[in-house]
């Protein structure tokens, strides 16, 4: 046994490149696994940190809604639960602007008392001047903001606050953490609570209460009591980890997909490497077996080798995982001032390590067992029966798998769609791999014809060499797997992004806003403002439960039949829309129709503010806005059943520059806490969000490409070693160095081209199948194909193989013909 191990160690040392490749594949897979697993917690943590700017450490919030009698309230009713609470912190928050060197700065002005702020969200002052007593027109600002704009302790800032210009004295500077953290949008300043209360004529009252519980487990119970105490105000939880996880789910899902791709490639690379390893070791194994080693012994040693690769790769992978996690977090932490703390559990590390060992073991097991079955005699006399050349069953099975994936989805019942769909995607990937040899031969036949004219006789020769060449086939498979999966992932995320931007195409208005206590009167006022062409206020309800279907509708609009179709691009017959007014009737998107499995005439019972109400479905329409999860009822029933007094959204058409009009509106409505944005603003911010997401995706794709290059390089080196002799023969019958170079280049080009094309084809297939399956999670899902993505995949395939083949090509011109020929 010792001697076998010694031989193997020597062999491993001789084949450093291959060892490296196996380790790299294992390492990357486990690193990605770890990073993905830990990302979810890390990202949630990071966002939680971000939200601390707003909520501090509070568990609950109480604040007025549009239905509240006043935007200010007394804190005494909350104080009666004082013994259950760690703290009650009251605040009034508003915004202000500040002219600074011709630039208008937006400030979040938060009124607190200092002891309360300290409890809610600890801060650290770096300097103060007449801070105490914290009364009157004093403010605290972050050190960073002060440095950015050149403000100093003791300066006066003239704020445009609540309708008048007011001078505030900078009484302290604070570290840019906690309440003074930069959220990338507003500058946060703290002023005395009393000061704001006085200006707003609300002394003794607050606009928001922050509560922290002594026992978080009693949250639900206490919320009920608080709701009873403040019946017309909102009692809400601050953001929970659960919500944040939900929020970061899209991100982590994408990474999981990517990880799966890398896993596939790693398995493939390790598997091919082990095929070569076992073949190389065959004579040695034969010799050992002939002198008495058992089958178990030789297999055991090989398995131990693969486990060792797994273990080393796993350890390295955990290390790389940390780096990766850090880099990804850095990317998604696109807001300034984000603090990055990596969050992971030892279990995640353990799993990543275990995965590494498992991948290595599983991918090498088949080749190891295969050679264990070969009788000793055959090994020694080198009479191992060569595999039959054509495996037609592979093509047939591949076609069956793909056909299944293409034709089955419509027949799968909705609840099973997700699990079965995932299986089908896997099946079609395997189907593609099985089809690769057949497809390759097909392409080679075509190319051989064309190449004669394109590249002359070297072209014919290259095509002949490629046929049945294992190394090339491996390369094409590797490329095809990588390219098709990357195509799928990139296309789907591209589609999501496009869909998000497409949303705004359906808006026939330029400004979207919300204003406190907006009603018909306000509409009339707005209409008189210069530049405002038309105004449409709408009532809406979110997440209404459908009691007779055990499901929810994410959004219902209470529509005005005269205005709705004028403001929104919706494919609905106006007469059908008008019919909504004739009773409790509802129009659903086709996506909802499928999801709820309903038809025209069915009744839906909705749990609304005024109790359960039953609506009759009068029709369906196509729309992908809000993921297709929204419905329309008449304005008057929405008002009635939801007890709405004020509009939830205002849509405004303008014929002037929307930015100007939006600025005017903000100014005119200042006292009503307006939140007004142009559609162009929304689009831009969505684009920005998408951009950082795409950066991560591109990084990932690049990573996969690098492994691809490694794998292809490995295959090319192996096949070069195998072909050395054949190359020497070709040289001996008159092939010049240039001809050899040309042949290699054509081979690489063809391999890359076929890999790219097959990858694109498989990718197309996967992309066509996935929407049927995605329907289960995301509603109807339109796919936006990007031709340039396909073309660049094919180009990437060519680039990878050509790059990877430079080394063997150069080696070929230095080949010593005589020794390559003499050796037998």
């Amino acid at each position, binding site marked *: 046994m010792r001697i076998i191990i010694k031989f193997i160690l020597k062999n491993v040392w001789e084949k450093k490149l291959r060892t490296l490749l196996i380790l790299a594949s294992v390492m990357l897979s486990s690193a990605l696994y770890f990073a993905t697993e830990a990302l979810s917690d890390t990202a949630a943590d990071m966002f939680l940190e971000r939200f601390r700017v707003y909520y501090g450490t509070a568990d609950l919030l109480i604040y007025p809604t549009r239905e509240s009698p006043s935007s200010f309230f007394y804190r005494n009713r909350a104080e009666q639960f004082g013994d259950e609470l760690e703290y009650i912190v009251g605040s009034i928050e508003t915004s202000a602007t500040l002219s600074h060197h011709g630039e208008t700065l937006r400030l979040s002005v938060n009124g607190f008392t200092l002891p309360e702020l300290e409890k809610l969200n600890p801060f650290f002052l770096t300097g103060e001047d007449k801070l105490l007593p914290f009364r009157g027109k004093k403010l605290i600002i972050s050190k960073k903001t002060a440095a950015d704009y050149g403000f100093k302790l003791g300066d006066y800032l003239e704020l445009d606050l609540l309708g008048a210009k007011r001078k505030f004295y900078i009484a302290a500077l604070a570290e840019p953490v906690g309440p003074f953290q930069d959220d990338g949008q507003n500058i946060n300043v703290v002023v005395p609570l009393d000061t704001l209360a006085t200006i707003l004529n609300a002394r003794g009252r607050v606009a928001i209460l922050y509560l922290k519980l002594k026992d978080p487990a009693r949250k639900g119970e206490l919320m009920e009591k608080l709701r009873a105490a403040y019946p017309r105000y909102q009692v809400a939880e601050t953001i929970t980890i659960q919500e944040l996880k939900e929020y970061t789910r899209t991100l982590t899902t994408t990474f999981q997909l990517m990880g799966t791709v890398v896993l596939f490639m790693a398995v493939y690379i390790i598997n091919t490497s082990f095929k070569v390893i076992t073949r190389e070791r065959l004579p040695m194994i034969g010799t050992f077996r002939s002198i008495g080693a058992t089958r178990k012994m030789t297999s055991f040693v090989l398995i131990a080798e693969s486990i060792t690769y797994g273990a080393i790769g796993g350890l390295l992978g955990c290390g790389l995982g940390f780096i990766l996690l850090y880099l990804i977090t850095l990317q998604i932490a696109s807001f300034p001032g984000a603090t990055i703390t990596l969050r992971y559990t030892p279990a995640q590390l353990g799993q990543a390590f275990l995965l590494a060992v498992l991948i290595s073991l599983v991918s090498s097991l088949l080749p190891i067992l295969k050679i264990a079955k070969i009788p000793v005699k055959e090994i020694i006399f080198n009479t191992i029966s060569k595999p039959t050349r054509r495996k037609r069953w592979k093509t047939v099975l591949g076609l069956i798998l793909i056909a299944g994936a293409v034709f089955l989805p419509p027949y799968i019942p909705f609840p099973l769609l997700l699990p079965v769909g995932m299986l089908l995607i896997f099946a079609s990937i395997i189907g593609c791999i099985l089809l690769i040899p057949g497809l390759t031969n097909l392409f080679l036949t075509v190319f051989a014809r064309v190449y004669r004219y394109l590249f002359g006789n070297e072209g014919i*020769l290259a095509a002949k060499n490629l046929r049945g060449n294992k190394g090339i086939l491996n390369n094409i498979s590797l490329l095809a797997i990588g390219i098709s999966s990357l195509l799928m992932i990139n296309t789907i995320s591209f589609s999501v992004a496009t869909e998000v931007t497409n949303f705004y195409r359906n808006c026939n208005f330029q400004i979207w806003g919300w204003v406190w206590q907006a009603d018909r009167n306000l509409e009339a006022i707005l209409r008189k403002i210069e530049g405002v062409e038309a105004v449409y206020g709408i009532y809406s309800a979110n997440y209404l439960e459908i009691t007779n279907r055990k499901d929810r509708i994410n959004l219902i609009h209470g529509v005005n039949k005269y205005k709705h179709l004028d403001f929104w691009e919706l494919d609905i017959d106006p007469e059908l829309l008008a019919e909504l007014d004739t009773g409790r009737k509802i129009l659903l998107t086709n996506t909802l129709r499928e999801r709820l499995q309903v038809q025209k005439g069915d009744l839906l019972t909705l749990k609304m503010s005024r109790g359960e109400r039953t609506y009759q479905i009068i029709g369906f329409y196509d729309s992908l806005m809000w993921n297709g999860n929204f419905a329309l009822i008449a304005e008057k029933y929405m008002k009635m059943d939801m007890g709405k007094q004020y509009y939830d959204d205002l849509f405004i058409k303008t014929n002037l520059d929307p930015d100007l009009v939006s600025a005017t509106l903000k100014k005119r409505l200042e006292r009503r806490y307006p939140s007004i944005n142009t559609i162009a603003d929304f689009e831009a911010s969505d684009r920005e969000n998408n951009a950082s997401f795409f950066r991560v995706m591109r990084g990932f794709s690049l990573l996969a490409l690098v492994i691809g290059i490694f794998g292809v390089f490995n295959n090319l080196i192996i096949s070069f070693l195998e072909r050395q002799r054949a190359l020497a*023969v070709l040289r*001996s019958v*008159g092939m010049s160095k*240039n*001809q050899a170079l040309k042949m290699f280049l054509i081979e690489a080009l063809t391999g890359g081209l076929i890999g790219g094309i097959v990858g694109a084809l498989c990718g197309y297939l996967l992309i066509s199948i996935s929407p049927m399956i995605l329907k289960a999670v995301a509603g109807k899902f339109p796919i936006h194909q990007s031709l340039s993505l396909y073309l660049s995949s094919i180009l990437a395939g060519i680039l990878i193989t050509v790059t990877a083949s430079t080394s063997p090509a150069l080696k070929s011109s230095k080949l010593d013909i*005589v020794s390559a020929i003499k050796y037998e």
Partner: protein
Amino acid sequence: MSPIIETIQLYKTFKMGEIEVEVLKGIDLTINAGEFVSIMGPSGSGKSTLLYLMGGLDKPTTGQVWIKGRNIAVMKDKEISILRRRTLGFVFQFYNLIPNLNVEDNIMLPVLLDGKRLKSYRRKLEAILETVGLADRRRHTPRELSGGQQQRVAIARALINEPDIILADEPTGNLDTKTGTGIMELLQKINQEQGKTIVQVTHSREAAAYSQRIINLRDGKVWEQ
């Protein structure tokens, strides 16, 4: 008779780390057009090395090789490749066929490399397949052929471009006596009917008997009989 291959003061030294092995020590040889020559000598005497130098597969340490009046030592890679595919044909002990190409493709390699159209060589190919007796095996790959058959493919490959010279390194070394005789008769026929110059390296007296002249190599020097 005109000389077709000439070697002048040919020296070849192999360096293996520190040690230098002088294998050929000043070979002066002239081989005339249409001759059938055998090179003999003990194992390790440098026969193969000499043959490869004559075919330009390796470069001499010093000395010159002239083929058809041209010094191949000063030729560029492209010229020497053209020489190999048009003027020389090699036959090796271990056949050295390309395993994934079939018989026809293997034979046509020199034509392919010469940039000629395969179609114009069809009749030629038929004739050569006839000569070597492999007309019914044209679609087989080397793996599916016997050793003697493989060697005949190698000879056919050496003939396809109608070279003036055939260089063979122990063409029968790996074959049984009967098959070896067949190969030698084939070479003799080619020499006599087509007037090709043939230089073969061999250990076998029987094989050498087919040639007109024997060159003996010993300790890197020529001992002509």
